């Protein structure tokens, strides 16, 4: 084996020189709109294939959906009321199984594995996916117990592990500073925005891979909404996030990819900036410009 001498590092030196003499060097290389996503991440982390969904066995609400949701990015589902975006979202962690008489055709795969595999225990699927609901639903327990609920039902008891999880999750949800002195007070003593952030902390406590958010800010004031959008922006470094929203500006602000649904069909699914700057489909154009829905 030929040993090569270690490469000198002229580029580093040049950069240093540049940085000293030219403060604007590298400005064009860096970009806020394209923070260089890791090419090793799967673009089809969640894959929806030929997915049809029925209520009461016959009433079809989702028609032949095909989409690939990439890993560690924020994907937004937008569309008018009743277009099926929430239905699809709730299928990803099989929450729709709780409704009687539902039926599906097609498949949804996460990281290559079908979620409808008969050998897959639904509970273990839901442990890997965190969900935040439109109306925040903290449990009638203390803040501490709320956050570690998923750990408790998984049987983990070690106090040090639980304490660490509480701190990590609350920090992750940008709530730690506000509640660290009252962890054992009831969760209902928090404000609306704080409760929703508590629900987010609870959703990420078990380190899920995917975070599903169903209109998480629709019941919150602009400041709380802003905090949560900030949070989503930070969380996407570690979690794959799918967010349903009927607030177009919110979709435009937080998401990397946007899917527009109408009457149960996927009308357009593309990078967010394409959807909002120059959508291919005139229906999408009409919807994002606020001309219907």
């Amino acid at each position, binding site marked *: 084996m030929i040993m090569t001498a270690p490469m000198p590092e002229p580029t580093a030196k040049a950069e240093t020189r540049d940085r000293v003499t030219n403060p604007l060097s590298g400005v064009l290389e860096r970009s806020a709109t394209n923070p260089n996503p890791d090419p090793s991440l799967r673009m089809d982390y969640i894959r929806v294939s030929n997915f049809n969904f029925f209520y009461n066995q016959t009433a079809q609400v989702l028609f032949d959906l095909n989409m690939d949701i990439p890993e560690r990015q924020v994907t937004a589902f937008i569309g008018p009321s009743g277009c099926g975006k929430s239905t699809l979202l709730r299928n990803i*962690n099989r*929450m729709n199984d*709780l409704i*009687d008489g539902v039926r599906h055709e097609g498949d949804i795969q996460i990281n290559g594995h079908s979620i409808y595999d008969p050998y897959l225990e639904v*509970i*273990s699927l*839901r*442990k890997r*996916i*965190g*969900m935040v*609901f439109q*109306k925040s*639903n*903290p*449990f*009638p*327990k203390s803040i501490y117990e709320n956050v570690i*609920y*998923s750990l*408790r*039902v*998984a049987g983990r008891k070690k106090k040090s592990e639980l304490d660490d999880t509480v701190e990590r999750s609350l920090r992750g949800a940008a709530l730690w500073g506000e509640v660290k002195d009252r962890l054992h007070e*009831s969760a*209902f003593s928090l404000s609306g925005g704080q409760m929703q952030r508590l*629900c987010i902390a*609870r*959703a990420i406590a*078990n380190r899920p891979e995917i975070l599903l958010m169903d209109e998480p800010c629709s019941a919150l004031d602009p400041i709380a909404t802003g905090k949560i959008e900030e949070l989503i922006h930070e969380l996407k470094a570690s979690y794959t996030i799918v967010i349903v929203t009927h607030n177009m500006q919110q979709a435009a602000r937080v998401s990397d990819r946007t899917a527009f649904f109408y009457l149960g069909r996927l009308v357009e699914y593309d990078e967010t900036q394409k959807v909002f700057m120059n959508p291919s489909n005139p229906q999408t154009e009409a919807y994002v410009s606020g001309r219907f829905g």
Partner: protein
Amino acid sequence: MFTSSQKDRPPGETFVWFTAMGLAVGLLMIVGLLGFIVWRGVAVFWPKPVAEIRLKEGAPTFRGSSNVVGVITKQQAIDARNLSPEQLSNPDPTVRMEKQLFVGNRNYFGVSYVYFNAGDIEAVDYPDGILNIERMEWGNALVYPIALEMKDGTRVEASDPAFPGRFRDLLSEVNKRRAAITRIEKGKIGKINHRMRELQLDERYLARQKTLTATQEQDLKRVRERIRELQTAYDPLAAQALALREQQSDHRLLFRLATGEERSQAMGEFVHHFWPNRMSVFKKIGQFLHHVKEFLIAYPREANTEGGIFPSIFGTVVMTLLMSLAVTPFGVLAAIYLREYAKQGPFVRAVRIAVNNLAGVPSIVFGIFGLGFFVYFMGGNIDRIFFPRNVELGVPTFGTGGVLWASLTLALMTVPVVIVSTEEALAAVSRGVRQGALACGASKWQTIQTLVLPASAPGILTGLILAMARGAGEVAPLILVGVVALAPSLPVDSIFPFIHLERKFMHLGFHIYDLGFQSPDSEAAMPMVFATTLVLILLVVVLNLGAILIRNHLKRKYMASAF
């Protein structure tokens, strides 16, 4: 511009008045009922003065005497049909009144209460020399003490200033000895008797067999030996008790009745005393509290017309607790299944309707069901399987009424209430909480156990409170499944296994019925009836308060449900 007219009044104001009136009427009825019971019940314990009445010349005498001593209990107008024409035309209204007197001394006079025409009364006096003695038998004695006759022959005259003190000391000595006797007889001898009874049953059973196997022969020999052993243990104890009993008769009290006769009685037959006409208010309060205490913790005497009601209280509490223990898991689990797991269809709806209707079934029907199913069927089978010896001998253990079957019967009666309120409480837990739990990866049971049940606990306790209130008050079914007027022992005592589920027990509700309608002297029993009713109401209130306190504590802890 802002003047109001008739048209501006909010519509429906008059109906607000109606609702307020309805509430007021309800409250008045409750307050009135409770007040009446409290008044009559509490009055029983207040020590009353004893009067000496001198009857007029020519008026009908009482046992040949014109002097009567007693407590004036009632004063009422004579029923018009019993009035003679002279009484009717008499301008003096007192001739149409009569007084009822409690004369006590039932063993001497034969009656406790006597009526006297008010017109026949010459004078009423309250001499302070009268002594009111509570006795083991024959109720109270209202007498003039003459002297104490001690065993060694000395006398303490009633006029002696040391008499009251001496009498009191002797009485407390007698009471202590009586307690010692009870400890020996009920305690030690009771244990021996219990074991003896079992062994005798064994002996009888073995003796009845036509042929005995070798082991049975051995058993019989051993049993007879054990009986002899116990007999030898019994004898000294019995002798001890007998000696104490004899000591009770060491001293006697000589006294005079109002009618003039002189009598005497052994001190050992006395339980309590007070001087009714000599007492200051403090003393009276002391007597009052003493009576209340005795009423609550003493055992009954004289076919339940005297003494205390402790066994009834105990029996009611034990039965109510057992009933609650039975109904809660059964009702709650049934409600959880109905609400959470069962597929909501016509069958589940039918079940729910059936459960609701069960609440309307008359309680006596439950009693008959309890008799047929629990007592005869289940009890009979248990006896057949576990107590064959007793079946052979015709001594039913579980095949007859007992505290277990009574509790189960009442549990069955109150289970609809628990199921309905539990279902309501479960339904009140919001879907959002359940969905959140499932999204966290909890299984359905984990959701129920960790979130839904704790949040429903206040509602479930409400159901339990209602069930307890209903169960504690029912009497009719209990008569069939295990309540008796006088039980030989308590369902819980110090003999292994400490809780005896097959024993019959006493119950406050039944006690009231028994006193009011089955006792030989209903006038004498009336005060006890009111006092017992008061205790029953207070008991139910206390049980409910306990449950309410627990519920409030839980509500504060979980504040999520609508209850």
